[in-house]
């Protein structure tokens, strides 16, 4: 049974509620409450990929196009836009792997045609291996085909698309500008969210009323929280988000490698090596560029960030080549990793073709770290509230599913709103929103669980688990149909 959300009575909220969002209404605004708030059908807080995708989806559909919608975003999103002629020598360190399902949705809402395609890199193969035992699994659509069936040339060969988040945001913004009809409040913060009052004319007691930093007040038939992991909308709605910190950091960086990759420009390969401290992943970008995600302990992350470019590059190369024991030692050094790694590599034979090409350089200023968390909101919906993206869930990045989950949320919420509009339901009512919650919650929960389990499984360095997980990987690798199933799931269904 989905938990029911009860809003606090607005008057009681100061005394009883421990919740922080409410900066109390400025007296100025309170006294001007005779000026009724502007009424919107959908107010989306947060202009990240999930929120923008939702708005573009609503405006692209003839059923929901007529809704009055607003976007509130604290940052100046225009300023952060990717310029059309941005140099291919430089890539943002914030990249995501878009699944074919996400891309399909972006196509359906008319956004994908606006992407800066030169900066998108599809990849056709994944190499995943165990850093302790070297057991390996490779994914590509060719080996994943059903037994004995011939290769179907019509079948797409792309596993996923590497894309900078700024590219995703920019394409969605362009699409929204083309569609029009969204009141954009950018560089604008939400000062407070409170429930409305019962005036003689209208009963707004179930409506969230937002006061913005520019002094405007909006009443939201449906308030969408696309406002990230610390979602103020979620706090307002009193929805608990549970989870834990992994005590790991994700270190990201934009890297150059010595060539286009072992498969050439038309067959790009993503690599992930599970080390006991967390997975190390190198994902292909156009040309000889790649993006790094190295999940490791906070101490090691801090040290990696402090290294000189040469030592950092040496450490990443070592991360794909040397044993966990060697790496443990290297992580203790303040500097001088480059020489140390060069010496140790001579004594560690590796099959160069099975691991990524050698990294040659790191783009300055791109080494950064962020804490890894697992969080899941108790529910995605409340009366006149829906959560999408990181506001609803935060996932371990090892499967690259975070952004895709947000895209899936947005698409599902568009479907739910669309059905409600077609059948005359109040799109903010919990009844109308039920299908969104039931559709997305279970799916995201499963994905959160799988990624969490994988993380735990590979954190073990020795003992029977290590043998079993290697056996598991090898077994899956040998079975085409089973691999096909895993790949289809990773690709987002179908």
């Amino acid at each position, binding site marked *: 049974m989905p938990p029911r959300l009860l809003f606090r009575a607005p008057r009681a909220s100061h005394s009883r509620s421990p919740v922080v969002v409410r900066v109390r209404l400025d007296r100025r605004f309170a006294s001007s409450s005779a000026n009724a708030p502007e009424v919107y059908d959908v107010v989306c807080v947060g202009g990240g990929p999930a929120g923008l995708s939702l708005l573009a989806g609503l405006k692209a559909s003839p059923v929901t196009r007529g809704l009055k919608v607003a976007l509130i975003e604290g940052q100046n999103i225009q300023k952060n836009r990717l310029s059309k002629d941005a140099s291919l020598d430089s890539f943002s360190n914030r990249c995501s792997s878009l699944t074919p399902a996400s891309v399909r949705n972006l196509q359906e809402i008319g956004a994908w045609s606006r992407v800066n395609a030169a900066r998108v890199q599809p990849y056709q193969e994944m190499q995943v291996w165990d850093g302790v035992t070297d057991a390996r699994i490779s994914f590509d659509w060719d080996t994943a085909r059903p037994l004995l069936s011939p290769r179907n040339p019509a079948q797409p060969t792309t596993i996923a698309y590497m894309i900078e988040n700024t590219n995703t945001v920019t394409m969605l913004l362009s699409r929204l500008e083309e569609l029009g009809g969204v009141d954009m409040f950018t560089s604008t913060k939400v000062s407070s969210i409170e429930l409305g009052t019962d005036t003689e004319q209208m*009963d707004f007691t179930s409506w969230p009323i937002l006061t913005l930093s520019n002094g405007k007040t909006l009443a939201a038939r449906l308030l969408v929280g696309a406002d990230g992991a610390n979602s103020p909308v979620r706090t307002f709605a009193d929805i608990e988000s549970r989870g834990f910190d992994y005590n790991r950091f994700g270190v990201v960086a934009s890297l150059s490698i010595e060539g286009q990759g072992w498969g050439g420009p038309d067959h790009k390969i993503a690599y992930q090596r599970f080390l006991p401290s967390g997975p190390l992943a190198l994902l292909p970008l156009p040309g000889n560029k790649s993006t790094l995600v190295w999940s490791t302990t906070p101490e090691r992350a801090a040290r990696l960030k402090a290294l000189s470019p040469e030592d950092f590059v040496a450490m990443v190369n070592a991360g794909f080549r040397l044993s966990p024991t060697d790496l443990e030692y290297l992580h203790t050094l303040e500097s001088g990793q480059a020489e140390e790694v060069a010496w140790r590599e001579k004594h560690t034979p590796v099959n160069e073709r099975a691991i990524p090409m050698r990294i040659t350089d790191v783009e300055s200023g791109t080494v950064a770290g962020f804490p890894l968390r697992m969080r899941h909101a108790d529910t995605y919906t409340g009366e006149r509230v829906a959560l999408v993206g990181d506001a609803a869930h935060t996932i371990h990045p090892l499967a690259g599913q975070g952004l895709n989950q947000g895209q899936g949320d947005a698409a599902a919420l568009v479907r739910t709103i669309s059905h409600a509009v077609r059948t*005359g339901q*109040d799109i903010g009512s919990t009844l109308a929103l039920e299908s969104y919650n039931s559709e997305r919650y279970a799916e995201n929960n499963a994905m959160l669980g799988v990624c969490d389990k994988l993380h735990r499984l590979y954190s073990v360095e020795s003992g029977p688990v290590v043998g079993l997980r290697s056996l598991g990987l090898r077994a899956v690798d040998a079975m085409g149909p089973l691999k096909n199933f895993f790949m289809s799931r990773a690709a987002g269904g179908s």
Partner: protein
Amino acid sequence: MRPHTSVRAIRSIQRCIRQPAQTQRPTLSQSLRLPYTATRAFTTTPTRPHNPSRSPDSTVDPTEVSHFNALASSWWDPHGSSRLLHLMNPLRHDFIASCRFNDPMTPSQKLKYLDIGCGGGIFAESAARLPDTHSVTAIDPTPGVLKIAEGHKRRDPLLMEPGRLTYLNTSIEDLPLPTRPEEAYDIVTLFEVLEHVNAPGPFISNLLPHVKPGGWLVMSTIARTWTSWLVTNVMAEDVLGIVPKGTHEWGKYVNEDELRGYFAKEPGWDGASARSLGVMYVPGLGWKEVKGGEDWGNYFFAVKRLE
């Protein structure tokens, strides 16, 4: 103030609701005629806060307003006793859309609805929100439920637009007839009402003049079969006791073929246009269309008035 009075308010509502149900006012019967599987929701309704220290006999609630608000929240509680009707509501629109599928309609043309026995306004509100709706007139003879409907309407500024949704406390007999047939309604709806009417024949003939030529009369009810008798009378009332005894009079149920027969003979009506759709509530899945279900359970029925 409101939280203190809501418990008492709810009790008085419950009394209000119970009373008309026993006297079989059309609107209040709603949940009672759903099949047994559906009425499971009843068992979950008493989840609302209950304060035993407060006597229901103490002065009834202080203000009309708090009555009204609490009343509305009970009727419109998504997990309350009307849940199954809420869930059924989208199907009504789908059914109406399927009826009108072949009707010529210019984009500028907007529809006028008359909802008879509107209750708390579940269907009336939803019809009033549709973009191709001109107006909805919703009538019910029970003053109590109309207050609920009016109170809930105030929660949506769209519905407060002048002329969009009008509630009238009247019976169909007392609703003034249109002066000219073109001034009648495009769609007249009668959802979950017919089976609680003493004389369905005269009742239907009273509402026929309100349908515009070329318009539709759309209704939903339940067939008079041994299955419906078992479900609504024996199980719901006698065995489980979740429906007040005597709520349903199985003998009043109207079968689909009887409606068809009625309209086949009715001058001015296109008996050939009559269509029906059986529906059933499946726990976990919601309301589902069931082929042939009109012969033994809940069903929709629609018929068109000749141009």
